[in-house]
């Protein structure tokens, strides 16, 4: 018994020292190769597990959808009609916008022309196994041209930033991770601020001026492009609550991300885009609030 306890104590101390050594090696950046090999071995297993889980979710969704099919059909038909009308209106606006930009000499300001983004499509094969961080593991890495700090998006909006890159896989820090910040702009008021991830999965937008028109529930939040880390005007989320205290210089708003991170199967990694620093100043006449802190990771 005594020998067993002594053996366990020795093992505990040995393993704790080993864990501490690994921690120090990681902090010094010496574990990259080990992680790369480990992820290369686990990635196929993760891909298979993720596909199986996605298939199960789709099956459940399909069964649920069958029950509401009639109702959804009618709703979609109405939506299609509305979208048709909206589409015509948007085409008119686009044409008008294009003409105005040409006249003003700001042709390059059109994000569709300006942000000629090269993208790499990656499959989401895993998520952070802990409840303490929000990461995705995708099946593209250094071999595919992925580099650290590249923005990751979907057709819905901004997903996050590439944080760790290995040969065949990468870890993406989501925008609602506690350590992630992004410079944003409110679509309606054009006010710029900083959004930061929260524990509950939403974003907290800070440094909003006390102006009552600066932010309202339902406002759409976009990337501002300031700092050059993200293409501008990517959808980040929608304001679901605002906080205002008279004794504070700035307001705060809670933003729900538009991207459903739990259902993500594929993402696009933006491997190259033209940062548009300074362009926003030319397009808007409002004074800019101070944007403290670096964008991306804290």
């Amino acid at each position, binding site marked *: 018994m005594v020998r067993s306890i002594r053996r*366990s104590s020795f093992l505990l101390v040995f393993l704790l020292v080993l*864990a501490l050594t690994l921690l120090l090696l990681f902090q010094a950046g010496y574990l990259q190769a080990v992680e790369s090999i480990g992820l290369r071995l686990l990635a196929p*297993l993760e891909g298979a597990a*993720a596909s199986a889980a996605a298939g199960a979710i789709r099956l459940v969704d399909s069964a649920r959808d069958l029950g509401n099919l009639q109702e959804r059909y009618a709703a979609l038909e109405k939506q299609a009609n509305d979208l048709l009308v909206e589409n015509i209106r948007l085409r008119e606006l686009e044409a008008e916008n294009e003409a105005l930009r040409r006249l003003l000499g700001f042709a390059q300001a059109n994000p569709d022309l300006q942000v000629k983004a090269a993208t790499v499509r990656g499959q989401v094969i895993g998520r952070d196994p802990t409840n303490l961080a929000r990461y995705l593991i995708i099946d593209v890495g250094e071999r595919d041209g992925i580099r650290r700090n590249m923005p990751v998006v979907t057709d819905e909006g901004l997903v996050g930033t590439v944080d760790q890159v290995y040969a065949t896989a990468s870890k993406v820090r989501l925008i609602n991770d506690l350590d992630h910040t992004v410079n944003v702009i409110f679509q309606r008021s054009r006010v710029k601020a900083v959004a930061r991830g929260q524990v509950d999965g939403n974003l907290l937008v800070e440094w909003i001026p006390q102006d009552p028109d600066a932010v309202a529930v339902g406002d759409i939040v976009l990337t501002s492009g300031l700092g050059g880390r993200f293409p501008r005007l990517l959808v980040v989320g929608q304001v679901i609550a605002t906080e205002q205290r008279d004794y504070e210089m700035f307001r705060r708003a809670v933003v729900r991300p538009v991207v459903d991170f739990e259902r993500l199967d594929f993402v696009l990694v933006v491997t190259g885009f033209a940062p548009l620093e300074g362009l926003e100043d030319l397009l808007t006449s409002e004074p800019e609030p101070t944007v403290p802190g670096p964008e991306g990771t804290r």
Partner: protein
Amino acid sequence: MSLYLSVPLLALLAVVQSAVLPRFPVAGVHADLVMLAVVAWGLLKGNPHALVWGFIGGAFLDLLSGLPWGSQTFPLLVVAGLAGLGGAGLFGQHFGIPFAAALVGTWVDYTLSLFILNALGRALPPGPFVWQVLLPASLLNTVAMAAIFPLASLLHRLTHRERLEYG
């Protein structure tokens, strides 16, 4: 159970915890499958088996997590060591022991992780952490233990018989 079986089993559990469970969150969190397996195995086998499982399981979690290496291995080693004391019969044989171990294991695991992450400059706000992560996770893990412990017991019986046959 030999290392040749423990390593792939814990790798599989870590992959399921990373690739499958986050798709089905309950109250914003998912069950800590690896931690529960380590606790259950510790209660059944005691130390040093629990410690080895704790280290291997923690290393796989660190590999798949975006958090720094050691932030999962360290706490899981401590949790495994405590659970291993249960395997020595220190906590008795009451049927509620696995559930209590899951609850306490979650608190110890998360609290140590919080300290390590804070020490590494990743500050989690304590209030939201307790209400939105620690409490739901500890409840979920306690409930999930109802499925994990019987499976671990079955595995224990199977591997124990194997050892008797070949031993």
